[in-house]
Structure formats: structure tokens, C-alpha cells
């Protein structure tokens, strides 16, 4: 199912929308960069601000984002982060059960990035163009 999310200036043909805290110094990101962020390999924004990635626990939006951008299944993604966590090399990203939870956390957290369902009306965040 392909949605078109229409905010002024943005057209994204994905089952998800990538959002970021309003102070994040980026308006667009490549798929490559988003993937590196969600694998914990890109850790800072251009201004040096630490990136805080936010995920959903499960669901179609979660699966679609991981398959399209991160190139992993939900199970693979979960165990990727568990491996970093249990070997002292990282900490699992914060996760929420729905888009509203993700959007609310991203809005109030400096450097945060997340993804939500296209029909969400997130407030206090910026929508990033995915290149």
C-alpha cells in the first residue's frame, strides 16, 4: 500500500514519514545516511549534536521502514541492537508502540529522529525529505 504524504514542499512515496526534532540541522537525508543512523554508525548531526534515533516496536510502518531503508527484517534489527547492547557496545534505541508516541518524543528531544505513519499529523517536528 503506497501513501502519498503531502506537506508543503514534500512528496514521499513510502509507507512512512521520517521526522526530526525542529532543531535538527537537516531538511533532507539520503537513504544511506538514514540507514547508518539506524545502525548506530552515524552518531552526530552536521553541527556535532548527538543523534537520538527513535523506533516503533512493531507494525506495518515499522516493518516497511526497516525493509525499505535499513534493509533488515524486524527480527534482524532487534537482534542487531541486542548484540550491541549485551556486548557493551551500544544501547538500544527508544521505541514506542505508535506514531503518536514517536512524534511526541521527537518533538521534545534535541537531535531526535523517528518515523511515523503517513496519516499522522505530527506537531512540533520537521518532516525530512528522503532522497
Amino acid at each position, binding site marked *: 500500500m503506497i501513501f502519498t504524504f503531502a506537506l508543503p514542499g514534500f512528496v514521499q512515496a513510502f509507507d512512512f514519514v521520517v521526522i526530526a526534532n525542529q532543531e535538527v540541522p537537516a531538511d533532507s537525508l539520503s537513504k544511506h545516511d538514514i540507514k547508518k543512523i539506524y545502525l548506530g554508525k552515524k*552518531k552526530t548531526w552536521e553541527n556535532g549534536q548527538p543523534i537520538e534515533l527513535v523506533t516503533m516496536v512493531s507494525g506495518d510502518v515499522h516493518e516497511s521502514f526497516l525493509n525499505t531503508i535499513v534493509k533488515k527484517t524486524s527480527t534482524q534489527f532487534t537482534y542487531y541492537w541486542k548484540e550491541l547492547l549485551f556486548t557493551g557496545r551500544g544501547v538500544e534505541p527508544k521505541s514506542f508502540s505508535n506514531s503518536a508516541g514517536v512524534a511526541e518524543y521527537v518533538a521534545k528531544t534535541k537531535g531526535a529522529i523517528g518515523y511515523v505513519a503517513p496519516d499522522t499529523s505530527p506537531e512540533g517536528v520537521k518532516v525530512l525529505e528522503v532522497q
Partner: protein
Amino acid sequence: MREAGKPVSFFVVIWTLFWALGNVGSVSAQMWKDITIHGFVSQGYMQSTDNNYLMETEDGSFQFNEIGINFTTVYEKLRLGMQIFSRDLGDQGNNEVTIDWAVADYYFNDYAGIRAGKVKLPLGLYNQSRDVDMLRTPIILPGSSYDEGFREIASACYGVDLYGNIDMKIAGDVDYELFYGTNNVESDSLYVRGFMERMNRGSQTAALPLDQSEPDQNIDYLAGAALRWNNILEGLRLGAHMFIFDAGANSEFTDPSSGFTVAKMESEVEDGYATVFSLEYKWMDFTFASEITHIKVETAAKFIPLSPQLPFGPVSRITSSTSLGWYIQMNYRFSDLVKLGVYYSEFYPDDEDKDGEKLIRMGLPDYLAWQKEIVPTVRFDINRNWLVKLETHFVDGAANVYEFNNPEGREDDWILYAAKVTFNF
């Protein structure tokens, strides 16, 4: 050699607590103030048709568990964390509580960061996660690359670890790690006992009717580097890992009739290193992996008589061997519930004696020169917290089977059955 009740009580209490958590439904990470808490408990069982493998498996044994709980907090670019760990593997671990890792981790940018404290070592793709059952398909990692006898020296070190990631754009990215530190090895560990077993093999001092004390082991340093090139093709990972170490061991010989110390042995590793080259490819629900490992240990030992009654004077002896191990593994996830895996592994403790001719000349069976295994595993992920695994090892050879676990001798062809249940949150 299990010590009194305290460590076992710790295991039982934690297991009961985790069990209770599991019964109230799906359990996620716990938070206390800004500290994230995660944990796991694994309980296994092993039984073999012949040969006691790492413990008394011929009679079947439940002395096979791991438990860990970790605490992590993050402030900007600084992460502080530690994992408390306890395990039992026959005579090893005995559920004593240890620190598995404890790090202060600060990254400067994507290219460079530093971890200090007790850090897990990247010797092969799965060495850092070898104590965490849920992170892999097989219950027992291929002994060809993940020899239990080398775990004590190569699983972690007290020191520093420099790390980072280099973006290669369309050619993927490269993770690197450089580490330096030291470690403590228990005198009754598999590493030390296996080391002494090899040192004494074929030596004239081993023929003396003397009791040898558990060696006092010291490690001067451990150092190494790892490069992992990710996504050259989507899903493909190549790894090169190097590890060097400097260690020594001293022990004493006593006359069992008088109880007097009559000689001592001083040994030093002159040249100790390990290399692991790795390949992993994930495609759809398949994972393929293969690694090849060399471990070289060249040791100079001096036997110094302290009593004139011994039949010979000081003896110096240099032993050198390079082990070779490799495996190939394939896993396939049928569904969220079921995953199947199989690996084939070959291990040779002496790369120059693959057919055991040297051992025959020492009066030992040739099949101690190799261990070849086919290992199918089925893994059931019951839910996000619970998983169960069943595994069978069809084994030819006994190179990874220790003499001290099998004083009545070792067999050539044998089968090992393993089962394990893990809870994590």
C-alpha cells in the same frame, strides 16, 4: 569443584525473579531513573554418547548456564555501562559473579571513539557475543574458531578500545577496533589446564612421579585489531581480526610421599597470536557464515630441580604449535517461530600434524589431532522474551576433548546432544 551455596543461590534467585517477570507477560527493558536495565538467563543441558565434553556429559549435565544483567546510562556522547555475569560450564565458572564488561564509552565523531574499562574483544565475528546464547543460532559456537580453551584469554580485557566507522559510500562501510590491555586468568581455567596438558605431553618431566601445582598464570598484555567491511554487497560482511598476547605461568612440583617441593617450572609464551578471517552474508531469510582461525603459541619452559635426588638437572624446552580451525555455517529462518541452522567445523590443534602421526609417535591416539563436526540446530523463538534450542553434534575426533575430563581415555566417533532455554528482557 563447585564451591558452596552462595553462587548457586544467586543463580536460583535471579532465575526465579526472571521467571516471575516472564509470567506477567511480555517484558521489556526496565528503567530506573536514567539507567536502562536489560538481562538474560540461559539454562542448558548436554549429554554425550562418549567423551566428557567440557563437563561430565556422558552422564548428562545441567551444569551449563549463563546469566547476565546490564545497566547503561547515556549522557550526550558519553555512555557508561556494565554487565554483571555468572556462568557454569562444568568446572568452569561455577556461577561465581563476575563483571563481564564495564565501560566508559565516549565518541568524538562517527570516525573515532574510545572505550575504557573491561571491554569485549573482537576476535572473530561472534567472539564478543559468545556468552549470550540468544544472539546466535547454534547453542555451541563452532569450536574450530571459538575454542572454549581460548575463551578465558580472548573474551575480554581490562584496557582501552579505540573504534570507529569509515563510510565508503557505495562500497559500504568499515568498522575498526584497536585494543590493548591485560586480563586475569584463573589457574584452574580450561586455558591454563589445556596449556599445561600440552606442555607436559611427551616431556621427560611428565614421567616423574611428582604432583604438579596449579600454575600461577600471568598475562603481561593483550593487543589486537579488527576490521569489518560491511555491505560491499548488500548483506555481505568481511572481517579480519588479529590478536597478540604475552603470558607466562609458574608451577611447583612436590614429592607426594614427603610433601616437599622438589622442582619448579617457569614457562613464558615467546610468540602468541591469533588471526581470524571471516565472511558473513545475509540474503532474505538466509545467513551464511564462514571463518578460518589460526592460533600460534610458542612457549619456552624451564624445569628447575630443587632437589639433588631428581634424575636429571635443569631442562629447557621450547614447544610451538599453530592450530587451524575453520567452519561453514548456514541458517534459515522459516518463520518468526522457527529457525534452522547447520554448520560443519574442522579443528586441528597442530596445523602440521593433521593426521596425528606425531601423536602416534608419542603413544597417543591419532584422533586427538582433529575434531570434525556436523551440527544441526533448531531454534524456537517462543516470543520476544523466550527461546528454546535443540542441537546435535556428530563428531569425528577428540581434539577439543580434555584428558582431565576423560582420565579413562577418549573415543574417536561420538555424538553430543544439547538443549537450552533462554529468557531475556
